[in-house]
Every structure is written in C-alpha cells, then in structure tokens.
C-alpha cells in the first residue's frame, strides 16, 4: 500500500483537541492498520473493496477450475458429488456477490466521486460500514469450508424446498444453508447502504455545472445500478427472512408439508435475481463507455440514447423475472408476456452496441490494453446477447433451460461482459490510482490468453446444452456425445486460468516496479484525470466548474479560462474556511463486526449469542449517531501540500 500512504500527508486531526468523552475521540491515524480500519476516504474504501473482491475472484476461479477438472472426462472421481455441489454453489455465489458486485463497488467508490468533482461521498462513515459489512457477509458465506457441515450446497438460487431443513445437506450437521441465508442477508445490507450513499452523492455532490446530462456515463450507470440495488434487494431480503424463519423457527412459507408454496421462493428470488443481472452488467457498460471514447479520441456516440437505454434496461429488468421460470408451468399467457418483455430488453441493449460502434467510427483508435479488453467486451457481450435472445423464445428455452446452453450464455455475459469490462477498468484506472502503468506487451498477452481461453471454455458449452447435458451435474456418461466438448472446455478453462494468473502477476509487479507515469497518461476526457496521481486525500485542490460533457477534455482545450476560474474558486473556498474533510471513526467497523459475530451465532442456532451481537450492533450504531459527523479543514500551499493547521478549526 506504499502508493497510498504517499497521499496521506494531511495534518493532525484537530477534533481530538476538544475535550470529549473517551468513546467519542476520533481516530486520527493516517498510516498503519488503524488508519484502514477507521477510514472514511472513498478512495481507501474503494481499494479495500478492490483488493477483497479480487481475492474472492481468484477463489471463485479456483473453484471453477476444480469443477472443470471433474468434468474433463466422463465418470470422473476427482470430486465427490457432495463436494461438487458445494463447489458450483459457492463458485456462483462467490463470483456474483463477492467478486463482480464488490469490484463494481470498488470502482463506484474510487472513481465516481472523482468523476463528479466531489471530495468524498455523501456519508463517508456509512461508506466504510458498507465495506466492513461486505467483509462480514463474505466470511459468513465461506466459513462453511472450514467447519464440519460443509459449504452451502443448494445452488446459488437455492430453490425451496431443497433449502428446507428436511432436504438440504441432510447427511451432515445442518448448518451450511443457514450460512448461505445469513451471508446473503448481511451482504444485502452492505449493498443497500452502499447504494443509498451513491445515490445521495450523485444527486447532491456534483461540482458546479455538472448537470445530470453532463455526467460521465460510468457515473450514470452507477446511479442506475444503485437504484436497481435499492429496489431489488428488498425482494430477496423478504425471501431470505422467510426462509430463515422456516429453518429456525418452524414457520411454513416454503414448507410443503404445512401448505407452503415453493414457487413463491422462485418469484421472490428472481424479482431480485433479474435486476441483479443488470446490477452486474450496467457498471461494466459504464466502464466501456468511458474507455471507448478515450481511446477513440472522440466523444461517446449518442450519449443521451446510451444513458436513456441504460435506464430503460434497468426499468424493464424488473418486468422480466419469470423468464428464469419458463419451465415452471406458468401457463400460456404469463409465458407469452414474459417472452415478449424479454425480447424488448434486447432493443436498448442493442442500441448500446450500435452506439459503441458509432463511437469507434471516424475515431483514432489507440490499441492499448484497456481498449483491447473493451473491444473484447463488445464482441463477447454481443454473443451473450444473441444467446439471450434465443432464451427469450420460451419454446426454445424449454430445451435450453437448466442445460449447458444457459451456462454458456451467462458466462458470455458475465465473463465476456462484466469481467472483461472490470479487467479493462483496472488497466484503465491503474495509472490514476497508483501512478504506474502496466506494460503493454504483458497486458496484451494476458488479454489474448484470457480471450482465447474464455472462448475455448464456453463456446463448446452451447453445443453441450443443445445436445442435452443438464447443468449442475457432477458426472456424465461417455455415451452421450459430450466427451470431446467437455474435454475442450476443460482445456480452455486451464488457458483462461493461466491468462488470469498472468494478469494478476503483472498487476502486482506493476504496483511495485511498473513504469511511472504523469498526469492523464491516456489523454482522457473525464474529471478524475485532472488531478495528480495517485490522488491526494482531498481529491481536488479546487472544486472544478464544469462547462461541458467530457469536462476534462473541455478543460484541456480552454486552459486559460479554466485557470482564471480556478484561482477565483480557490480564493472563495479559502474564505469559507478551506477544504472540508470528514473525520475517521471506529463505529462502522465495530457495528459490522457485531453483525459478523451475531450472524455466526445465529447460523449456529445459538440465539443468546445472536442477541448479544444485535445489542453490540445497536450500541455501535447509537454511538455512531451520537459522535456526529465530525470533520476538519485543510489549507493548501502553492504545490498542493496541506499547511499545518494553526487554529484547530474543528467542527462537528
């Protein structure tokens, strides 16, 4: 974390100077463990999200490789049925909730405030809380690997009644499903508070002149994604609480023997689950919409339509959930309605692809590594989109549902889509975050290994599915015509694994030894590139005034005017007390850890422990409110370094 500490040259927190009760003494450490546990800096929170989500990305990838080894040949005995079921359940849960979502959150945290010209998010302590709760949820989900009961084994959408106490993990001590239920609930808390924070930030904290229709598209997609999270997570929360009640207290929401309705779970789950798909892909589309214009040296083609189609996708995403349920016997009318609604979603999605191509047209395409990943995204997402159209035709889907064709489809949109865009984003913003640049040769090598490995793995799966291979099967017979496609897919998975490994080794190497670059190495267009790299804690020495979409591009072409304006704003800000910074706090961390211990006690059916955790959580939140927002002012010298404060201008 060497690169980060460089930006931590801020003076001592003057809040401590005031006489306050012990519990309200604000931590002031700027380096070391305490500084990270108590951080409220959106950039540090973003890095915490980034590092932990990449760790879980590697864990999920490792689980996938074990799965592919088992399926490389028919009748393999590399894994037992039980282990295999745990692996595919945890692979999906990990990749969705612990890798792609938090990696998107990492970019929301780090990049979005910079793009709108803000110094932090609206609720800095809530932001820290969202991360620590995420960490708590990820621990609860994974703790099963280390205890007798085993990891969750009910599939990532946990269809009732397989999740009831009667059926799930029936031959082990029965705790894995409780871990899954509790883990997802805790993660839901993290996602919702994080999203509320982003919504308030984007609406309230934009720099002067940053109108909604001048927002960078990534920020727009952050906003839409945050709304999707806030609106869709209540559905799964209700379902999970009902399931938790069934499992722990004997209620009968899904309990068949007492008249419960398992189909209810599917509706609730997919009312969350389909918007979730867009929660995973919209941030990716946002990243692509930043990278393509930068490396085409041209504005995004049809900005209003791209923004609008993103919103339409988000909206329609709430009306198509039952296309995950075409085989549940919904009847003709519902099936027809969801079929047509699903096809309709292809229109705004197609529009985005057209506009990305329009962005390239007549541009000067610089084939740097982020651009390679971005173009790879457009190709792969297009393929995933077309197999999606095939699913939308319900009668065709009757053959494809729950087969490897579906597995192929969602890996094309989730790896070829989300992951490619996130990997592109890491390459793209690495110079901003760490001040170093990944070598083009190694970057492109890892791109091609990932691109080839990905296609060799997942393209054959279309054929496996249409040839009748169901998903979630730990074994298959050698007479089904599935041998060669499975073997090739497994070879591809190894290539993909090598590509990912190279990618990460190169990233780690670059972090320590990579080529140092100055400000704005790509010739970019948005405000985050207007500040020094790595960014100082206060982000902007002077809050910028925005005059156009692609605000930084405008700045670069109107230097004198902007310089004059900045000098004026700086003087004005100084006269209002200087740069305002939020104070650090222990309570987000303490509250999240209370949630972790309470949650673990609950899954172990130790209700006294659970209540104790709840009490600590309650007290922590109460004290958090009581200590107040805090904050202090910074004054900068001519080089942008903070001047030691003299008069202790603390306020709270």
């Amino acid at each position: 974390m060497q690169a980060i500490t460089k930006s931590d040259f801020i003076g001592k927190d003057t809040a401590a100077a005031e006489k306050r009760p012990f519990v309200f003494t604000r931590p002031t450490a700027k380096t070391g463990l305490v500084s990270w546990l108590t951080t409220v800096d959106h950039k540090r929170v973003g890095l915490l999200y980034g590092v932990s989500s990449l760790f879980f990305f590697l864990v999920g990838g490792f689980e996938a490789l074990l799965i592919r080894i088992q399926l490389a040949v028919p009748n393999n005995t590399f894994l037992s049925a039980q282990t295999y079921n745990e692996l595919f359940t945890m692979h999906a849960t990990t990749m969705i909730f612990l890798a792609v979502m938090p990696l998107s959150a990492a970019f929301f945290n780090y990049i979005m405030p910079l793009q709108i010209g803000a110094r932090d998010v609206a609720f800095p302590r809530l932001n820290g809380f969202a991360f620590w709760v995420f960490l708590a949820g990820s621990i609860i989900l994974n703790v099963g690997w280390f205890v007798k009961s085993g990891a969750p084994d009910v599939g990532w959408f946990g269809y009732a009644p397989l999740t009831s106490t009667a059926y799930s993990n029936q031959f082990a001590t029965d705790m894995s499903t409780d871990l899954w239920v509790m883990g997802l609930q805790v993660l839901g808390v993290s996602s919702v508070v994080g999203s509320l924070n982003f919504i308030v930030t984007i609406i309230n904290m934009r720099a002067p002149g940053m109108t909604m229709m001048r927002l960078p598209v990534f920020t727009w997609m952050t906003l839409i994604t945050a709304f999707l999270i806030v609106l869709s997570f209540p559905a799964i929360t209700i379902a999970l609480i009902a399931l938790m009640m069934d499992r722990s207290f004997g209620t009968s929401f899904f309990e068949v023997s007492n008249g419960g309705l398992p189909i209810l779970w599917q509706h609730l789950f997919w009312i969350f689950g389909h918007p979730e798909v867009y929660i995973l892909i919209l941030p990716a589309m946002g990243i692509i919409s930043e990278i393509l214009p930068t490396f085409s040296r041209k504005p995004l083609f049809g900005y209003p339509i791209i923004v609008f189609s993103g919103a339409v996708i988000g909206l329609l995403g709430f009306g198509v959930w039952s296309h995950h349920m075409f085989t549940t016997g919904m009847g003709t009318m519902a099936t027809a309605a969801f079929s047509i609604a699903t096809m309709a979603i292809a229109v705004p999605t197609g529009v985005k692809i057209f506009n990305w191509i329009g962005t390239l047209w007549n541009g000067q395409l610089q084939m740097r590594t982020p651009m390679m990943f971005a173009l790879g995204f457009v190709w792969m997402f297009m393929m995933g989109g077309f197999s999606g159209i095939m699913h939308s035709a319900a009668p065709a889907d009757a053959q494809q549902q729950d087969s490897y064709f579906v597995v192929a489809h969602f890996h094309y949109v989730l790896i070829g889509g989300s992951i490619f865009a996130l990997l592109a984003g890491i390459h793209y913003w690495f110079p901003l975050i760490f001040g170093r640049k990944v070598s083009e040769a190694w970057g492109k090598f890892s791109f091609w290994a990932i691109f080839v490995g990905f296609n060799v793995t997942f393209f054959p799966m279309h054929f496996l599915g249409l040839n009748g291979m169901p998903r979630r099967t730990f074994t298959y017979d050698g007479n089904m015509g599935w041998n060669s496609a499975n073997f090739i897919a497994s070879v591809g998975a190894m290539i993909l694994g090598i590509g990912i490994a190279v990618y990460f080794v190169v990233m780690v190497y670059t972090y320590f030894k990579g080529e140092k670059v100055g400000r704005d190495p790509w010739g970019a267009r948005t405000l985050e590139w207007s500040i020094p790299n790595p960014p100082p804690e206060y982000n902007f020495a002077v809050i910028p005034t925005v005059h156009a979409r692609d605000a930084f591009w405008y700045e670069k072409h109107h230097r004198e005017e902007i310089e004059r304006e900045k000098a004026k704003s700086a003087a004005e800000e100084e006269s209002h007390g200087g740069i305002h910074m939020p104070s650090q706090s222990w309570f987000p961390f303490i509250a999240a850890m209370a949630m972790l211990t309470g949650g673990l006690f609950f899954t172990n059916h130790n209700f006294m422990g659970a209540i104790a955790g709840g009490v600590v959580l309650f007290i922590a939140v109460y004290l958090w409110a009581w200590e107040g927002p805090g904050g202090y002012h910074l004054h900068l010298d001519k080089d942008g370094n903070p001047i030691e404060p003299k008069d202790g201008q603390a306020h709270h």
Partner: protein
Amino acid sequence: MRTLSQRAEAFRPLRFPFGDMTLTLTLRTAFSRARSLVLVGLLPLLTGGWTSGPQSTFETHGPVAKTQLDVFYVTLWVSMILFVLVAAVLAYATLRFRIRSGESNNQPPPEQSHGNPLIEIGLIVLSIGALVIIAVPTLRAIWYTYDVPEAERANAYEVTATGYQWWFKFEYPKEQIEGSGALVTGNELVIPAGRPVRVNLRTVDVIHSFWVPKLAGKVDMIPNRGNHLWLKADEPGYFWGQCAEFCGESHAVMRFRVVALSEADFAAWLAKQKNPARTVPGTQIGATPSAASPRVEFASYKYEKQRPNSPGWSESFDRAPFAAWQQKQQVDAGENPELIAQGRKLFIEKKCAGCHAVRGHEGAGISGPDLTHIGARTTIAGGLLENTEQNLHRWLTEPNNVKPGNKMWFGGYVVRNNETGDWEEQFSINDDEARALVAYLHSLK
C-alpha cells in the same frame, strides 16, 4: 416456418465422429476429412459430433420437440444474420480507424461528433423488426406446446410422473388393477407411439424437472403445484431422459428412459404389466426347505467389483436400444429356481420388501420404485445403469458408490444413531446373497 426449418435441415452438419475417439484418432480422421472441411465449412465440421447423441435436441422424434427446434432455428438464423452484420461493421471500424504502428499517437484529434439521431432511431426500428420475426413463431409455439391440441385431445393418453430423490415413478391412471389401484412402474415410461401423451408432473420431495430432449422440452415437477406437459413420439422408439433441475446430492444421476410402442405392442405390454409378479414354479416362500445362506455353486456369473461412479452403459446396448428393450421382455434362459427362491427370501430378510412393492409377492413398500416387473426393464438405479447381472449386483452390494446419498443406503443399509448422529450399518449384502437377489429380481418379467 416450414422453409426455415427445411433450410435448417440443410444447415445441420455432417455426422462426424469427433465425439468419443482418442485425440490421435480425431486428428487422423480430421485430416482424412479435409475435403469435406473445404466443402461444408469449419464450424459444422468442428461441431458435427456435438449435435448428435441420445439427448440431442437437434434429433427430434415428436411434434413438441420439433416445434421447439423450429423456434430455436428461427432465433438462430435471425441472430446469425444480425451478428454477421454488426460484427462486420465492428470489425471494419476497428481495422479502418485504428492508429497503425508507425503512425503518431499525437495527431490532432478527430472531429468531436456526438451522434446521429437518424441512424440511431433507424437501428432501433430495425431491431424491433427483427424481434417481431422471432416473436410471431414464439407465440404460436407457446400455445401449441402447452397442452395437447384440441383436435387430438380425445385421443390423448394420460400418465402421471412423480419425482423422488433420485428416481421417477410412472402411474397409469387409466389402467386400474383390481385391488391395487393404478398400474405403477419406475424409471422407464412406456407410451403408445403416434398418440399424444399428457404427462401430469408431481413430486414427493423437492423440485425435479422432466426432460426427454428428443420428445419435448422440460417442465418442472414442483411441490404443491399441478404441472403437466405433453409429448408425442412419431414412431416406436427408445429415448433418454434426465432430471433437469438441481435436486440434491445425486441430481446428476437421476435419469430415466421412455419407450414408445406401436398401439398393438402397447396393449400387449399393458396387459402383461397388469399381471402380478411372475412366479417361477417352485420358488414360493415355504416351497423349498430354507437354507442358512445361498450356496456358492449356484453362482451364475463372477462379479467384478467396480470403482465408484463407473459407467453402467455398453456400446452393444446403445447400438440397438429398442431391440434390447424387446429382448428384456423375454424370460431369461437358464433360470435357477433354487437361487430364485433364495433371493425371494432374502428380499424379505434384507428389508427390501419394506420399501419396494412386488405385486403378488411379499414386497409391499411404496417409498422405493415398484419392482413387480423389474426384470423386464432395461435400466436400474433410476435409469443410471443397464439392467445387467453385474450392474444389479453392484447396485445391491454398494448402492452408495453408485448413487451417493440415496435412501436405499441411508435409512436402509445404514441407519442413523439418534444419540451420536452417526450412521451405523444395519445390514449388508454379500456377493452370494446378491447373486440370489439378482436371480430373483431378473425373474420378475
């Protein structure tokens, strides 16, 4: 629709044995077929072996699966055409507008154009048009595949399929048997060919899904929900099916078969199935003096132990599965009444009768598959293993190595100690006992 599906027929790739050869063989074959590679293009060649197999959705044998395939081809063609168009423009733009090596990265920027509403709206209208092409056949097929068409409803045959962890029960509500209700079989659904069959879908535990790819797409079996599907086999034949919804530990090995028979054969089969279990003369309980355990000299075969999860299929069977099924209906040559009598006793002693029904004999349980005519079925263990002596022996002696977590093992061979929570052996079946049980079960034609 018709012309599209005919064109799709033409698209259907050449059969190419890429599937199950060793890698060297594959390469050799690939070179020898180099000419067809040039003729038909790379993709169909590569995928030739990948579109055919016992559960291929490309090789349809009934109107429901055919309709679903036709819709798929419509989506495929529309997608392919759009993909080729968009990809061509994307590829052109990427190649045409890229900065080539040697060119400066620091030229003056291109014109900062922001879009073209006419092009954008035009493309939106175009995409909607393409979707309408898909939507029309989709809607027609949704109604057609949902239930037996009105015109054929009077002629439809009805069966009820029930999912269990991890096997299928099939009931024939129209075939009532005096004193024991509707005819029940397990894991092999026999239907009349050329007649629509309405399958009621039920489950006793978790969600399963009934899928016979060559006859019809899947529909789920959901607790507290009366689902159904319909299918029709155009011709007599033998079809593979499999559970398609994750249903617990052994979901992967929950399989079944469907046998379609001509009207006359079906009637004959029904008549035979309605009979109580066949009794080989002299094998009734008490007919022969009881021996302590079966004697080795009765051994009709030598059992070869298999590793867990080893395959239970054979090439000879796959070559002519329907003929194999017909063969199975005949009484085996060289039946050994003494061994069969021993097996029938063991069926009680080893508690088989508590879970399995053998109508007319001692079996009275209903929690496991009905075994009244198990000897006439081509598969055992939920469609997983061919019904051979070796496989049945293996299934009886080590069920948990064949189908992990199954209830014949858990709750049968081993039971849970309520105090310690551990599973403790209740009984086991040795090789001699297994041979007697195999002889008895195979006599149940």
